[in-house]
């Protein structure tokens, strides 16, 4: 099955996986194996090296932003530079949404990071490149969330006891 982006992984400099998005069917076991191998490979690379590497029959495009590595697997003949900018655009989206994003934002709001993904990339393909459109979609979701929260706010929940 041909997919433009096969999977995307976000992990920290310590090798902790922060986010994963798989666009091909994989067993949990093979996902873990791939992640382990790839994290080790990418972390071992030196700063001046190219952002691309061949890995099995795929090409890995990665870039480090502060403490986080963003890592995309694409087909051999896909466009590497554009994939690099796809990563960058996603980082920009996170940055704009969280306001100067940091690793903690992604840990505590992992579901938001996924929702942003789905507005930007769908099934491994870019669906919307406009920053404004994506952020508007996410902000609309937040408005709905706020409304729904107003309706049902539990006291216990507020105290963090639930």
């Amino acid at each position: 099955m041909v997919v433009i982006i096969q999977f995307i992984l976000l992990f920290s400099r310590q090798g902790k996986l922060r986010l994963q998005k798989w666009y091909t069917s994989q067993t949990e076991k093979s996902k873990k194996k791939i992640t382990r191998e790839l994290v080790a490979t990418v972390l071992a690379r030196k700063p001046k090296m190219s952002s691309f590497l061949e890995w099995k029959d795929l090409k890995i495009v990665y870039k480090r932003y502060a403490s986080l590595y963003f890592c995309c697997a694409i087909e051999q003949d896909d466009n590497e530079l554009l994939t690099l900018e796809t990563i960058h655009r996603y980082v920009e989206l996170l940055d704009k949404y969280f306001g100067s994003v940091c690793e903690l934002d992604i840990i505590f709001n992992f579901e938001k990071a996924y929702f942003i993904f789905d507005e930007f990339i769908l099934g491994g393909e870019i669906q919307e490149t406009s920053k404004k459109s994506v952020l508007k979609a996410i902000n609309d979701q937040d408005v709905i969330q706020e409304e729904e929260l107003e309706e049902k706010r539990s006291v216990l929940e507020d105290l963090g006891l639930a």
Partner: protein
Amino acid sequence: MRGDAMRGLAVFISDIRNCKSREAELRRINKELTNIRQRFRADKTLDGYQKKKYVCKLLFIFLLGHDIDFGYMEAVNLLSSNKYTEKQIGYLFISVIMNSSTEMKQLIIQNIRNDIQSRNPIFINLALQCVANIGDKEMATAFTQEIPRLLISGDTIDPVKQSAALCLLRLHRTSPESLQLNTEWTARIIHLLNDQHLGVATAAVSLIDALVKRNPDEYKGCVNLAVSRLSRIVTSSYTDFQDYTYYFVPAPWLCVKLLRLLQNYPPPDDASVRSRLNECLDTILNKAQEPLKSKKVQHSNARNAVLFEAINLIIHMDCESKLLVRACNQLGQFLLNRETNLRYLALESMCLLATSEFSHDAVKKHQETVINALKSERDVSVRQRAVDLLYAMCDRSNAEDIVQEMLTYLETADYTIREEMVLKIAILSEKYAIDYKWYLDIMLKLIRIAGDFVSEEVWYRVIQVVVNRTDVQSYAAKIAFEALQAPACHENMIKVAGYILGEYGNLIALDPRSIPMIQFDLIHSKYHLCSTTTRSLLLSTYMKFINLFPEIKQYVQDILRHDSNYRSSDVEIQQRATEYLRLSEICSATVLATVLEIMPPYPEKQSPLLVRLKQKKPLTEAETSSEPFAATTANPEDGPKLAESTIHLNQPVQQQQNGLLLSFDTLESNNSFNDATSYSLPSISSPAPTSSTLQSAKKLLFKNSDIIFENDLLQIGIKVEVAKHILGVEFYYGNKTNSNLTNIANTIKVTGDLESDIRFNIEPIKTGIDPKAQIKQSGTIECLKEFQELPIINLSFYYGNVLQKVDFLFPLYVNKFIERAEMDSNSFFLRWRNLDKPGQECQKIFPAKYPMMHDDCRQKLEGFGWSNLTGIDVNADNFCGAGILHTASQQIGCLYRLEPNKQAKMYRLTVRASKDGVANRLVELLDDEF
């Protein structure tokens, strides 16, 4: 962003982060899991919000790397909530955790269906996103109607269209057979390329690209739309696209997708579309030369992403030589760029350019830079690209340098790429060897440097080459012997050397340094260090020695008799030792000589090395390893093929239309010559038998007269007569039409080396031909130097006021200047033996293309120009002969031997010539003619 949506989740995450140890974390997680399990089990009154929160916690735990085996039902329940955020978490859980599980599949599909039909766009989108992420066969079947309708319906809002397009794409990819798209929708889907909303167009191109791959004809209409959309983008200013401009580059994602879409089709047929596309590509190349609009890397990346995709398209179309060369120059600049990424990509793209005949030479200009990259790049993936490119750009002219550089690099190369490099070096050094001694030197060096990475195929191939080439066998024996003298020998070296000495050790046995006993001792000194496979091979070598050197028979027998062999625990060794010993004891010398005769030549087929290389790199190498061959060999052979195809294309009318102008190639034509009318070409008296039925792929190769061009209007015949290095030539132009051909003009174009190699002296052509009439143009052609290329004839004339232009290759091959030479067997062999320097000989084994008739071969060889000497070769089936190739400055002696092997349906042709390279050229002319 808004405040915390789920306070409890945030608290849990903080707890986990505060855990001081892995055990503490595990305890906290288990506590939470127990808690959630209880809640789910006990509390039937759990509200949607709480369900959502717990499902989200499970998701978090799962993402930490723990297995989650409950909560699925609660997650699916969330899908039917009417609260958006609850639904959203339900879908997220399904997408992340349940993507391949079949449990509750029907329930999930039902929920998705409800949402798709809900008319609430935000619900529809959630459902579509889920399908786009995890869609499978069942979903493809379930939504085969609904989703396409959403895509093309006029009232669907844009974000839903985008999701629907990518949803369909997912379903199409997972299960193309389940997703039946109505053909009435085709046009409407294609027209999404023109959608005002760039986001819709961006999503739609991906879908169309996939549909095109399945059914290119049905979606052919997309080419025009894609070209015009692309053209609108690349010619606009970046300010025109607002938020779709990325760092001053207008819509890079859409551009790249469009450029990829176009790579599914050949260059557009329609001239206007094609020129519009070429303009686009030109514009993109021009923009690459403009100063950067921003110092940010995002700007240059996006610009170059489009540029590289454009170059891919240019390479794919492979027809615009100007664009190809421009692309190559652009990439050449990138090779020197500071950015490692650009250097990497430039090397990668150049690999493809090297396979195009239009840009192969342009790529070769960068050889120095690429070799430097191999030496100085700090990143192994970049060096790997440099290796690939060197391999792709290699041809006869630079093979020696490239192979040497690769060998040098191999010594320090990363282990991961050594085996592949070994294969590449082996392939190149064989393919481009002018001198097979050089090839053998390289191969033995290869085994010495990287013995562990030499796969079986590689050393098998060395043996095959040596067995098939009698001229290198004694050299092979010599260097194999020398290689074994090294104190430490790689086992692969022992195998190769052992095999070669077993076959050809006798060729060096007269040298006192390598008399039989020394050879034997040397090999046997390695025997005990070897694996059983190698030992088995060496036992065969020993046995062959008994035949080659009867004087050491006794020593060999002692070894065979030795317990470690005769009673070896390895069954193969034991069997060989026993059988060989017995054979040596009971057989007479003659029987032994027959049994142990040297190996016959191997049939030539595709090199096993290429097969191996393809296995190593299934995706990329399949292309790059086979295509450079086509590209580099194309030049000499393309000529006649091209000329032929033009003739065939225009042929059909000729026979019926008038019986007056007939081809030389058919029997009837000979008859019609006899009662020649003024229109027909003059009958030709050729020194060789008219050989009119001989089949040949090359015009004029075996004959002194031929039709060299023909279409509906015109037939051009030629007749030549040789006198040393000067060829008398007569062209006959026959008008096949019932009207006048006027303003005839012709030129013979010689380019490159050819300019200094041949000189034409042809009288001007008459300017007109009457209907059904014929004119003659005569002249001489002088051969100054043995030439390679074919001249091109450009002819133009008017037929009924319409200018007609024809260009075709003039099938003037160098053999026309060969004069036959007769000699007796003594002088033949004397000359043959004298021509033993590298470059003087060329041998090729090739399959028979035509029925193997002795008489046909004879006629062809005589027609070729040289003599056919009988009584020279002991085997009457073989052919030998000689000729002198005349050029203005020298006379080149040429000898040949052609050996048919009827059983194998193969020929072996050996040509020796007194001047370097000539033998090669003559073999090239003949190797597909028998």
